């Protein structure tokens, strides 16, 4: 399975441009994931099930769901991304691909960025696409559904990027899953606050451009800083094993 993909990665040819290498990493991650479609589906099913728990566990009243809907969807999306983070580096770590990545002449943080983006395409983006359906099920009004999708579209890449730091730090540890959640949940809080806050504001008819811009600022900050931290953490974890 890996032979055809690793040819690109193993090539000692320094002349391979950084963009080419990033693309190779990105495409490789997508291809591998698409050959295990069930693994892609599981976080989505988890997302749907967690959302279902709230009307059952708290209240199916329309008035409650209108109020809490955006928060429920955001929390469920956050948990679903959190659950899928373990996959980000785990397989590559187990079969040694990750060591090859670290040894590449291209800057590691850019390859990490490519991997994080692939992770977002595989987990965050499907959540965004699924969100309108669930938004209707929790009785979000017309405009708020669109705003919710927009906040998820801007917010879920941030979740993937920050999460990649935690995934890199806990790589190869026992019970990494729980530890990963412990490390990452506090860092997700600002995204959650702005994600739900924006939808709440939209449902009250307030302008949301400023809040969306702030979320965009989070995204830019995460895009510029998280890959560095994640790459540093990867090197540490690999030197450990």
């Amino acid at each position: 399975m890996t032979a055809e993909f690793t040819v690109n990665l193993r090539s000692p040819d320094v002349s391979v441009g950084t963009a080419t290498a990033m693309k190779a990493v990105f495409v490789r991650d997508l291809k591998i994931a698409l050959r295990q479609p069930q693994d892609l589906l599981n976080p989505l099913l988890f997302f749907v099930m967690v959302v279902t728990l709230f009307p059952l566990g708290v209240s199916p009243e329309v008035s409650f769901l209108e109020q809490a809907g955006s928060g429920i969807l955001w929390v469920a999306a956050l948990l679903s991304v959190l659950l899928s983070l373990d996959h980000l580096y785990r397989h590559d770590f187990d079969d040694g691909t990750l060591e090859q990545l670290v040894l590449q002449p291209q800057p590691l943080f850019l390859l990490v960025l490519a991997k994080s983006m692939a992770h977002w395409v595989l987990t965050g983006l499907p959540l965004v696409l699924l969100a309108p359906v669930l938004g209707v099920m929790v009785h979000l009004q017309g405009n708020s559904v669109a705003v919710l999708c927009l906040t998820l579209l801007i917010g879920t890449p941030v979740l993937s990027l920050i999460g990649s730091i935690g995934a890199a730090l806990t790589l190869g540890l026992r019970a990494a899953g729980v530890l990963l959640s412990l490390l990452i949940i506090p860092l997700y809080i600002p995204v959650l606050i702005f994600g739900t806050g924006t939808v709440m504001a939209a449902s009250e008819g307030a302008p949301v451009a400023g809040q969306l811009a702030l979320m965009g600022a989070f995204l830019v900050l995460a895009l510029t800083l998280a890959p560095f931290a994640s790459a540093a953490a990867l090197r540490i974890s690999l030197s450990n094993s």
Partner: protein
Amino acid sequence: MWQIFHKLGSPKWFFGIASTLMPWLLWVGLALMVAGIGWGLAFAPQDYLQGNSYRIIFIHVPSAFLAQSVYMMMAVAGLVTLVWRMKLADVFVKAVAPVGAVLTFLALFTGAVWGKPTWGTWWIWDARLTSMLILLFLYFGVIALGAAISDEKSSARAVAVLVLVGVVNIPIIKYSVEWWNTLHQPATFKLTEKPSMPAEMWVPLLLSVLGLYLIFGWLTCLRMQTEILVREGRTRWVKELVQAGGN
């Protein structure tokens, strides 16, 4: 200058310095604490609004103060670990992280005790309380990661990365929590101390803050010494020290 820097990296040198500093830190710190808290509890005037219940600030404010600055100190030490690979910096982070967590908890707990008579409730989702709670989570994360990695060097650097990521996030968390709180409801109660606090109130407060800093310094030295003894157990100077029966 470089020699001092070099020495700072030596656990043995630090062990000696810490031993001489510790009695001073402890006794001066205790004296300041007793003076500050004694003054604050017994002699400072009552608050015109809150009566005697406000007196918990003589414990609450120092611990909240220190809880936040300990994380900053950890971040500086984390940077030193990553840049200069200095062993002592990591010893410091490992030694103070649980202390910081306890202080954060103490600040939350005393806040809750104060909140009950003043606000009529133990807990309120006030911006300040919430960001302190998240700070407590950040401390827990640091402690958990440090405990999970058995290799000393990797553990040091991984924790350093985490602490630095956390310190970048602290202002973002703080401001987003404030924004969140004001969005949902205007702040009904402000935890901020009154700017027009009379000197009989803020002088004992300052004394107890200073006292707690010194006691924190003492505790840090003690915990760092213990950590050094555990880590350097195989070196000659530790063996000699132990055979000589302590200091």
